[in-house]
């Protein structure tokens, strides 16, 4: 019954409460944005990485030999592969396109299946031992074999996300899929676990893997090696010398663990800055709410005195003021939720609806806690107003 009475009182004073309502609405939208980011990052972070980067080094080179003959070039790279593989500190070796995990390169394409276009799809051009280097887990089918070089349809492998989008829970192995223009059909031979190639906080997205054929060597400039435990700076130096002598040109060796840190920082640093800015805003809003409630109580001393006279105890006056603040917060949150719910409904930024829903719930909880905390002390002060004094102030 008190709730109805308070709602009526608040509704009749909606113009006076406009500032309070606006502050809560703006805070909710900011908090919703922060929690949307955090939920999005957390959901991605909690998913498995899908590969093992810790002992992987990337070697980027620029082949200075300028070998034009294709067969000679193939022999050259085959020998290089064997030389690297023969090194005792190296466990696995693979050639790769530029867009390997944690690199800053991307290559995407589109696929066609049953008249439906899937775009974008991250396209990875990979060597035969790419799976071994990264320890990528196969979910279905198989990895590339040498005979895949001569099949009628180009064989390729997709990740779980793309498989679910294309076939749901159905089987993908052996299915023919159209390329970007739907002119050439390619055959799915395997499904691998998703790999979070852009860092811990970003989704794997759709991905496809095609076999690096010998014609690709002319433009290739990246090798990935998986080293053994004993591989240290001395070995890195030897490897660098070997590669420089082989390529007759500049070479760069990077540890994937460092590349991962750099990639994650690109997400973490702006997020921390955003949270700090939002925190300052929330502190200001909290002080504002506190001030507005305090001011309202001082303006309503006679009403509080009257309520005490006609039967309200100190604690019920305090409770009333906290409830009023919570009702006002609810009114603002209803407007805020109307705007916020548009994000999952319209699939804004192509982010899963669950991210927005969780962020909305967290924001609602946060705002209620904020308003509750800000109204607690003014409510307590109101309870302490002496009715006899308050009723004689006018």
């Amino acid at each position, binding site marked *: 019954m008190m709730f109805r009475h308070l709602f009526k009182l608040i509704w*009749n*004073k909606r113009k006076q409460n406009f500032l309070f309502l606006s502050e809560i609405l703006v805070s909710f939208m900011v908090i919703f944005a922060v929690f949307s980011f955090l939920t999005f990052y957390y959901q991605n972070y909690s998913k498995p990485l899908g590969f093992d980067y810790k002992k992987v080094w990337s070697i980027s080179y620029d082949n200075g030999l300028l070998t034009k003959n294709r067969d000679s070039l193939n022999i050259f790279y085959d020998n290089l592969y064997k030389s690297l593989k023969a090194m005792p500190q190296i466990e696995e070796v693979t050639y790769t396109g530029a867009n390997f995990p944690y690199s800053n390169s991307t290559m995407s394409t589109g696929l066609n299946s049953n008249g439906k276009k899937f775009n974008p799809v991250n396209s990875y051009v990979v060597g035969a031992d790419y799976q071994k280097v990264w320890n990528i887990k196969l979910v279905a089918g198989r990895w590339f074999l040498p005979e895949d070089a001569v099949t009628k349809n180009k064989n390729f492998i997709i990740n779980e996300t793309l498989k679910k989008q294309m076939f749901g829970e159905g089987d993908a192995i052996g299915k023919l899929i159209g390329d970007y223009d739907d002119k050439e059909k390619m055959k799915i031979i395997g499904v691998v676990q998703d790999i979070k190639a852009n860092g811990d906080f970003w989704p794997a997205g759709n991905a496809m893997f095609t076999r690096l054929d010998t014609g690709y060597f002319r433009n290739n400039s990246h090798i990935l090696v998986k080293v053994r435990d004993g591989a240290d700076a001395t070995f890195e130096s030897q490897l660098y010398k070997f590669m420089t002598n082989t390529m007759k040109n500049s070479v760069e060796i990077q540890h994937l663990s460092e590349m991962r840190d750099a990639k994650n920082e690109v997400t973490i640093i702006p997020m921390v800055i955003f949270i700090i800015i939002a925190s300052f805003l929330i502190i200001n809003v909290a002080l504002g709410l506190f001030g507005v409630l305090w001011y309202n109580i001082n303006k309503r001393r006679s009403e509080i005195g*009257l309520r005490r*006279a006609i*039967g*309200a105890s100190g604690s019920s006056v305090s409770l009333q003021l906290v409830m009023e603040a919570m009702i006002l917060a609810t009114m603002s949150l209803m407007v805020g939720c109307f705007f916020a719910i548009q994000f999952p409904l319209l699939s804004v930024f192509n982010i899963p609806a669950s991210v927005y829903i969780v962020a909305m719930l967290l924001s609602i909880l946060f705002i209620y806690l904020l308003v509750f905390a800000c109204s607690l002390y003014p409510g307590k002060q109101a309870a302490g107003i002496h009715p*006899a004094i308050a009723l*004689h102030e006018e």
Partner: protein
Amino acid sequence: MIRLQNIKKVYRTDTVETLAINGINLDIAKGEFLSIMGPSGCGKSTLLNIMGLLDEPSKGNIQIDSQDISSYSDQKLAKFRNEKLGFIFQSYHLINDLQVLDNVELPLLYRNSSAKERKRLATEALEKVGLSNRLKHFPTQLSGGQRQRVAIARAIVGNPQIILADEPTGNLDSAMGNEIMDILINLNKNEGTTIVMVTHDENMAHKTHRLVRLFDGSQVQ
């Protein structure tokens, strides 16, 4: 109905000590209409606040309806005020953001009565003061006399045994003041409500059963 025994009230600040009420003894019978008069600052309102349990005496004992309320908690005092006492103030103390009916319903909000029951009782109370045609008005849309009648309706809606009125006609012209006084007299006569009224107006005071005069915190008549 109300028994005050050797009531003293002292207001203290860091530097000054003011004796507002100095040893007042007063017995008010059930159904009595008593007025309290005296110059400004003589302690009339303080005495009324003490009777209304809005203020505590520094010394002395107060009994209402044979109950010693000195040991009552804040919760119990609030319940007691709600059930036994009705208040009327010089400046009405209506909530301007609530309609007349809602203002009158206020004391019932602190009881376990349904919305329907509250509306019925508030409407009845407003009928008694002749304002049944102003239920949906806001206080700012009413005259001073009408506002005070709303305040009276609010005071009687819970059917209290005692009404404490602090200069109820103080802000009204004589015609409106008489109207309010008539309502209070009828209430006392017909409902048997005990009324204690603080006033500056001799004419109004002489309409009551008994007149108590205060001077410098002491009873002189």
